[in-house]
C-alpha cells in the first residue's frame, strides 16, 4: 500500500513537527509534542494524546461545554425553548451561528434562530438566579404557549454561585406538564465542547427517556411500529445535511421516526427509543446516548458516513445489511439511481481537482469522515486533526488516512500556520477563525464546520454541492490576483540575479 518514498516523508514530517515545537517554552513544548504526530501505516492509532486541557496562552480553536450542549446538541431541537442561563454574552455570540436548518414558524412554534437569556446582572450573581429562572419560565409560558418544553443551559457563573437549577426545573416541569431540562454545561467544565456533548446526552437519558417510558406505558406513542423504524442521530442539519440524509434512508424504505437533533422536535426525542436501529453520523457528539439506548432498551446502533459517493454506497449497504432483503435490494436501487449523477459530477469536477492536496482541521467527525469525499475528487489529505476528539476518534481515523499524514490534536493557530507554510497544501478546510489568516496567505479555503454558508454536503445531493464548492475554492481566478505584478516581477528578477 505505502509507496516506499513515503517513508522519507514520515521522517521529514516528524522533523517538521520538531522544528515547529521549538518556538514554545520548554514546559509547553513538552505538553504539545504529545499532541502532534505523523501517521505510520499499520499503526492502530494516530499516536497523539487528546481530550486534555489546552495550554493557557495559545490560540486554540476550542469552545466550551456550553457550546457543546446548547450550541450543538440541544439548540437545534426546534420546538423547545433553550434558555442561555447566565450573562447575555454566550447566547449572543452564538446566536444563529450554526445554520441548523429547520421548518417552522419562528417565535410561534419554532425557536431555533432566537436567543433567550436570563441576562444576569450583578445582583443575580450576588443573590442567585433561581427565582429569576422560575419567573423566566413563567414568562415563556405566557408569551410562547406553543413551546413543547424548555432547556436550561448553564453558563459559567451558574455552577460557581451554586444555583439549584434542577430544583427549579423539576418544579416548573410539574407545574406546566412539560419537560424542563436543566443542563450543567458551564463553560469551565471539561477541556472543550466535548464534555458539553456528554452532558447534553446524559440529560436526554435522565430527563427525556423517562418521558418515553411513560409514553410507552400509556400507549401514547403516536406511530404504529414497523420493522423499518430508524432514528437518525448526530446530524445537526447544517445547511440541510440531515434532510439530504433522511431522503436516502426513506428512499431505501426505512422510516425515520426520530431526527436528533437538526430540525428535531421534543416528540422525536421522546420517541427515539421506539426505533429499531440508531444510525449515528457524528459519533463524537452522540455516542454516549447510543450506549444508553443500548443498555436501557437493547437498541442496536451503528455509525455511518454520508460524505462522498464511495462512502455513501458503502454506508447504505451496511445499513441495509441490518434489515431484510427488501431493504437490501432497495439500497442497491438507490445506489444505482444516483450512480450516473455521481459519475457525471465526478467526470465534470475530478479532472479539475485531481492532484490537489488539502489540510483539514475541524471538530467531531469531519477530520476523518470527509477524507473519502476528497479522495473521490482526487484530492489528497496531507494533514488532519480534531478540536475535541478523544482517543477512540484517533483510532477510527487510522482507517481513513495515508501513511505520513500529519496529525495534530487541538492544534494551535501558530502550529497550523507553520505546518501549512511548510507543506504548502492547495486547500485548507477548517473554520471561521482560521479562514482569513490562510486566505491572507493566498490559500483557497473552505469552512468545514458550516460549509461556508453553502450545503448540504451530506448524501448524494450534498456531494454534488461539495464538489462544486471545492472547485470554486481551488479554481477561483481570484487567488492569482494576489500580489502586485510589479512586485512579483521584482522578486523574480532578484532571484535570477
Amino acid at each position: 500500500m505505502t509507496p516506499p518514498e513515503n517513508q522519507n516523508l514520515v521522517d521529514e514530517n516528524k522533523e517538521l513537527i520538531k522544528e515547529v515545537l521549538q518556538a514554545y517554552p520548554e514546559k509547553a513544548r513538552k505538553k504539545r509534542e504529545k499532541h502532534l504526530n505523523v501517521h505510520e501505516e499499520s499503526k492502530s492509532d494516530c499516536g497523539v494524546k487528546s481530550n486534555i486541557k489546552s495550554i493557557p496562552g495559545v490560540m486554540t480553536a476550542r469552545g466550551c461545554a456550553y457550546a457543546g450542549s446548547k450550541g450543538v446538541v440541544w439548540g437545534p431541537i426546534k420546538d423547545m425553548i433553550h434558555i442561555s442561563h447566565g450573562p447575555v454574552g454566550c447566547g449572543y455570540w452564538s446566536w444563529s451561528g450554526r445554520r441548523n436548518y429547520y421548518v417552522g414558524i419562528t417565535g410561534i412554534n419554532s425557536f431555533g434562530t432566537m436567543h433567550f437569556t436570563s441576562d444576569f446582572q450583578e445582583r443575580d450573581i450576588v443573590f442567585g438566579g433561581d427565582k429569576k429562572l422560575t419567573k423566566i419560565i413563567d414568562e415563556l409560558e405566557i408569551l410562547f404557549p406553543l413551546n413543547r418544553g424548555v432547556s436550561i443551559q448553564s453558563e459559567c457563573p451558574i455552577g460557581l454561585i451554586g444555583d439549584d437549577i434542577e430544583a427549579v426545573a423539576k418544579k416548573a416541569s410539574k407545574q406546566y406538564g412539560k419537560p424542563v431540562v436543566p443542563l450543567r454545561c458551564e463553560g469551565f467544565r471539561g477541556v472543550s465542547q466535548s464534555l458539553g456533548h456528554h452532558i447534553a446526552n446524559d440529560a436526554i437519558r435522565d430527563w427525556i427517556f423517562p418521558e418515553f417510558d411513560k409514553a410507552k406505558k400509556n400507549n401514547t406513542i403516536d406511530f404504529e411500529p414497523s420493522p423499518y423504524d430508524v432514528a437518525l442521530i448526530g446530524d445537526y442539519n447544517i445547511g440541510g445535511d440531515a434532510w439530504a440524509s433522511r431522503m436516502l434512508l426513506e428512499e431505501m424504505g426505512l422510516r425515520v421516526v426520530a431526527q436528533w437533533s437538526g430540525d428535531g422536535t421534543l416528540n422525536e426525542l421522546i420517541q427515539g427509543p421506539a426505533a429499531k436501529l440508531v444510525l449515528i453520523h457524528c459519533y463524537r457528539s452522540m455516542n454516549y446516548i447510543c450506549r444508553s439506548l443500548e443498555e436501557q432498551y437493547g437498541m442496536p446502533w451503528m455509525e455511518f458516513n454520508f460524505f462522498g459517493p464511495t462512502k455513501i454506497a458503502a454506508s447504505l449497504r451496511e445499513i441495509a445489511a441490518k434489515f431484510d432483503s427488501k431493504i437490501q435490494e432497495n439500497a442497491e436501487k438507490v445506489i444505482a439511481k444516483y450512480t450516473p449523477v455521481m459519475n457525471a459530477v465526478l467526470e465534470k469536477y475530478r479532472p479539475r481537482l485531481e492532484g490537489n492536496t488539502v489540510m483539514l482541521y475541524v471538530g467531531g467527525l469531519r477530520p476523518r469522515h470527509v477524507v473519502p469525499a476528497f479522495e473521490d475528487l482526487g484530492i489528497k489529505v496531507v494533514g488532519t486533526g480534531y478540536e475535541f476528539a478523544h482517543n477512540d476518534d484517533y483510532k477510527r481515523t487510522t482507517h481513513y488516512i495515508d501513511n505520513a499524514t500529519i496529525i495534530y490534536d487541538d492544534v494551535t493557530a501558530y502550529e497550523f500556520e507553520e505546518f501549512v507554510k511548510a507543506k504548502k497544501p492547495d486547500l485548507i478546510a477548517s473554520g471561521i477563525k482560521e479562514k482569513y489568516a490562510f486566505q491572507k496567505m493566498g490559500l483557497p479555503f473552505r469552512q468545514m464546520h458550516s460549509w461556508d454558508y453553502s450545503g448540504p454536503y451530506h448524501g448524494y445531493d450534498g456531494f454534488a454541492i461539495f464538489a462544486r464548492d471545492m472547485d470554486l475554492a481551488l479554481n477561483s481566478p481570484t487567488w492569482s490576483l494576489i500580489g502586485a505584478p510589479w512586485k512579483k516581477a521584482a522578486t523574480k528578477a532578484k532571484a535570477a540575479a
Partner: protein
Amino acid sequence: MPQNPDRIVDHVDLFKQPEYTELFENKRKNFEGAHPPEEVERVSEWTKSWDYREKNFAREALTINPAKGCQPVGAMFAALGFEGTLPFVQGSQGCVAYFRTHLSRHYKEPCSAVSSSMTEDAAVFGGLNNMIEGMQVSYQLYKPKMIAVCTTCMAEVIGDDLGAFITNSKNAGSIPQDFPVPFAHTPSFVGSHITGYDNMMKGILLNLTEGKKTATSNGKINIIPGFDTYVGNNREVKRMLNAMGVDYTILSDSSDYFDSPNTGEFDMYPGGTKLEDAADSINAKATVALQAYTTPKTREYISTQWKQETKVLRPFGVKGTDEFLTAIAELTGKAIPEELEIDRGRLVDAITDSYAWIHGKKFAIYGDPDLIISITSFLLEMGAEPVHILCNNGDETFKKEMEAILAASPFGKEATVWIQKDLWHLRSLLFTEPVDFFIGNSYGKYLWRDTKIPMVRIGYPLFDRHHLHRYATLGYQGGLNILNWVVNTLLDEMDRNTNITGKTDISFDLIR
C-alpha cells in the same frame, strides 16, 4: 430529482423541490408531534396584537433577542486598535472562541486573541497559574508588543485579581518587568460590550502613559473613536484632520487591523496606534471622544488625572460634522479648509436631491447609544420622523439626551425612547405601530421577515451583507453613505410594491 451536474443547486433551491417538501410534510405529520396549523396561525396573529404587546412589555425576568453583547468583546476591540497588541482573556476559553468568531464573521478578517483556558481546577484554586503559564506562552509564541488582559465572568465570579496576577507573572519571569500589560476587569454581568471598551481603553492609557507627563503640551489632539466598527470612519477622521493640518493621535485605531490588504502573507498585527504615540497622549492639548457612552470612565480619568480637556463630538450628518470641525478649529487654531467645505456642499446637495423621499417617513432604530444618537440626528436633519428608539444597553442619561434631541426637532415629537428593551419588544412595537423603515444590525433581519418593514443595515454585527463596514458613516462623506443606504432602501421597497405587471405597476417609474 437528483442533482443536475450542469446546474448543481444548494440549499437555496434544493429544498424547494417536491421530494423535499414531501419529506418535510411527512416528517411534520407523522413524527414531529406538531400543533395543528390553525392553532399556529391563531397564535401567530395574536403575537401581532396590542394584547400581546402588553404581555410582552410586562415581562420582568426574560430577555429575548437582546441587542447587546458582553464586556470582553468591547475590551478586545479596544485593545486590537493598538500596535502589536495581543488580547489575553483570563477565564474559560469558550468565550474567546466566540469573540474571535463574531468579529471575524463581521469583518471577514482574522482576529487573534488568546485565553488562559481556565477549567474546573482554576474554578477551585483561582486562575493565577493559568496566567503565569499563559503569559509566558503567548509572549514567546506570538511576539506581541503589548498584551492587554481582560476577564470573563468566570474569572470575575471567582475573584481573580488581575493587577496582582500580572505582577506575579512578571516576578515569575513569564514576561519582562517593563513589558506593557494593561488590564481591565470586564464582568459579563455588568453593562455591555461598550462598558468593556471603556474599561480597556482606560486600562491601556493608564498603563502606557504612567510617568510620561512632560512639562509642556505636545500640541496634539487625541481622538477616541469608541466602539465604532466602520473601518472607513477612522480613515475619514484622519482625512479631515490632515486636511486641516491638525496634529493628532487616534487612540485605538483598528481600521487597518480589520481591513488589511491581501498580499499573500498573513500579518498578525497590522496597523494600530503606535504605543509611543499612545504613551504621549497624556501630553496632548485635548482629547475628543467621538462617542460618549463608550468612554465615560476614560474621559473622567483623562480630565481628573491628566488634567486635560475632554470633549464629546459626534461628527455625523451635516450639523454633527459642522460642530466637530468647528470645535477642532477652536481647539487647534487651525482653519477649516475649502476642501472640507466642498465636501459639505456636496452632502448638502445630495440631501436636497433626496430629502423628498425621506421627509415625513416614520422609522425605528436600535443599536448602541451613540450610534442611535448620531444616525437619528442626521435623519432628523432630513425631516424623517423617528417613532421607536430602542437601546438595549442605554441608561437614563442616554434617555434624557435622546429626548432632548427629539424635543429640539419638529420631527421628533412622536418618538418614544425605550431603554433596557430587546428586539422581541421591538417586534411588538413594529406590529402595533408600524413604520416605513427601520435601522439596525443583521439580527434585525428576523424583524424584517416577520413585519415586512424595509430594513437598513447599520451597526454591529453585519453578517449577512458584504462590505458595509468598509464604508465611512461619519463626516460629510459618511453622510453620503447613510443617505444612499436609506433612500435606496425606500426606493427598492417602492419598486417591490409596484412591480406586478398590469396590477400594481402603475407607479413603476423609471425616474425617481
